């Protein structure tokens, strides 16, 4: 496989959008192309993450219409769907095609208009990424799944639930602190001085998960220009290289051995590390899938950054802040930045690239700029997991 680089990045403001999905995606794509200094004719294929466009705007096959909206011509345009991990699946597939030599330059990204659906309908359609035959009639929701995981985490590691809730709240406090500093975040200039008590005392969505343990519903898009690494320096002095990728699949909740140790995530992360020739000790920063506070803790343990049952304490101790063992979600994460589900994986990569360029918002920038960064994106109740490891220099052969 050839090495693949990211040479351009784009990202709309997350939150409530009046524009339609195709317009959001085109905005992000044109930003990325301008950032890379490439033209429409340079793009050979498009990979678009979009989880629920049929339910949001009655649009199936959105990738083809996005290619048309951008006047990219009759190039192959493919929608990738892995629920909330859709964009990471798109980026991984796109990078494989470029790596395999089929294309030199492609667009990969994602888009979603989830906030516009409203909480009731959005909860219904999001729950479609649960196992419909067995979890559908139960009325399970994603806050519900992670609430079940939190109770199990408390039990598995013998941490009293009230103590665990405080430590979970510290994830929300941290991520809102950084989201409030991020001009593209849904909660920019909001909730930046959140307190642990605020999170615990906000209303229950699914016990013990409160509203402030949750990421919001969001509209938004993000896109990247991927290029064969051997050609990347033609366009930019600072290509960011894709060093390793992983993808894993899970199944219905009832078939999982342990909700707090998702095999799909463990397997995907291992694949990415192996491909990159790196281990957790080498990674300088993470953007992980904090759809709920407990989800960030489970992610960090499953990826090997903390021992089982230790991420809760570590987070409460500030080890995932700037200056700690490993800064996590300095963009604000899904909780502070927003979670337009089909776009999230691309947004995570966008913010790793911004960090590596030294262009993260003041207060969020890690110093010195990170050499290696990693994203973690989760779809469904551990149904689709993706990891992407990025670096400022090429993979060591």
């Amino acid at each position, binding site marked *: 496989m050839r090495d693949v680089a990211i040479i351009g990045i784009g990202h709309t403001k997350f939150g409530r959008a009046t524009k339609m999905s195709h317009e959001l995606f085109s905005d992000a794509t044109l930003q990325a192309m301008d950032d890379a200094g490439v033209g429409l004719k340079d793009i050979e294929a498009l990979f678009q993450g979009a989880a629920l466009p049929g339910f949001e705007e009655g649009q199936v096959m959105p990738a083809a219409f996005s290619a048309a909206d951008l006047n990219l011509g009759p190039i192959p345009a493919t929608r990738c769907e892995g629920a909330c991990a859709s964009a990471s699946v798109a980026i991984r597939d796109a990078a494989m095609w470029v790596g395999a030599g089929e294309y030199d330059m492609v667009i990969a990204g994602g888009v979603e208009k989830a906030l516009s659906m409203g*909480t*009731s*309908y959005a*909860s*219904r359609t*999001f*729950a*479609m990424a649960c*196992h*419909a*035959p*067995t*979890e*559908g*009639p*139960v*009325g*399970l*929701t994603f*806050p*519900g799944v992670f*609430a*079940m*995981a939190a*109770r*199990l985490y*408390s*039990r598995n590691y013998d941490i009293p*639930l009230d103590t665990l809730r405080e430590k979970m709240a510290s994830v929300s406090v941290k991520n809102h602190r950084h989201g409030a500093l991020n001009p593209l975040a849904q909660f920019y200039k909001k909730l930046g001085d959140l307190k642990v008590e605020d999170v615990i005392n906000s*209303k*229950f*969505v*699914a*016990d*013990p*998960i409160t509203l402030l343990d949750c990421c919001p519903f969001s509209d938004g898009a993000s896109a990247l220009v991927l290029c064969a690494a051997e050609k990347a320096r033609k366009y930019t002095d600072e290509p960011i290289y894709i060093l390793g990728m992983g993808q894993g699949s899970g199944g*219905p*909740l*009832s*078939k*999982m051995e342990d*909700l707090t140790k998702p095999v799909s995530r463990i397997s995907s992360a291992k694949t990415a590390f192996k491909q990159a020739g790196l281990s957790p000790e080498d990674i300088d920063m993470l953007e992980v899938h904090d759809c709920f506070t407990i989800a960030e803790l489970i992610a960090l343990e499953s990826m090997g950054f903390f021992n089982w049952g230790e991420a809760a304490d570590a987070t409460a101790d500030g080890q995932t802040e700037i200056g700690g063992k490993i800064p996590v979600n300095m963009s604000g994460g899904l909780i502070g930045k927003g979670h337009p589900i089909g776009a999230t994986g691309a947004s995570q990569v966008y913010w790793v690239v911004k960090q590596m360029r030294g262009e993260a918002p003041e207060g969020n920038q890690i110093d010195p700029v990170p050499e290696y960064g990693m994203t973690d994106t989760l779809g469904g109740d551990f149904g689709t997991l993706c990891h992407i490891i990025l670096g400022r220099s090429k993979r060591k052969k």
Partner: protein
Amino acid sequence: MEKELREYTVLTHAEYEEGIKEGKLLGLRCASCERITCHPMPVCQWCGGRSLERTELSGEGELTTFTVIRVPPEGFEDDVPYIPCLVKTKEGPCVVGRLDYDAERASQVLISKQVKMSGAYTHKGDKFSGGTHTCPVFVVVE
């Protein structure tokens, strides 16, 4: 031709749901590893074995975890608050269902309690669900 038309389903999901409505938790016993698969799959959930025969589980097990849903998805407004739960059956496989318990009293002490299947919950479904679907309901064995 006959070979091409072969089907691998020993117990369909519809039959599994019908069983729940009749108070029976149906599953599949694997001839290779002797373990039980539930809900049904075309292959053994433990070893992938293909020689499966129908069996009935006791409906008894242990409560692995649960939650109380306060903000429901569209179509579940009338049920709130309700308790989804995950049960590890005596026979081995886990099952997702509803717990019949006072939602305002449901606390962490319920975890690991013995439970047994007490009935069925059928949701009316919506235009996305392909009809109605049924899940098991469990009660705590005091």
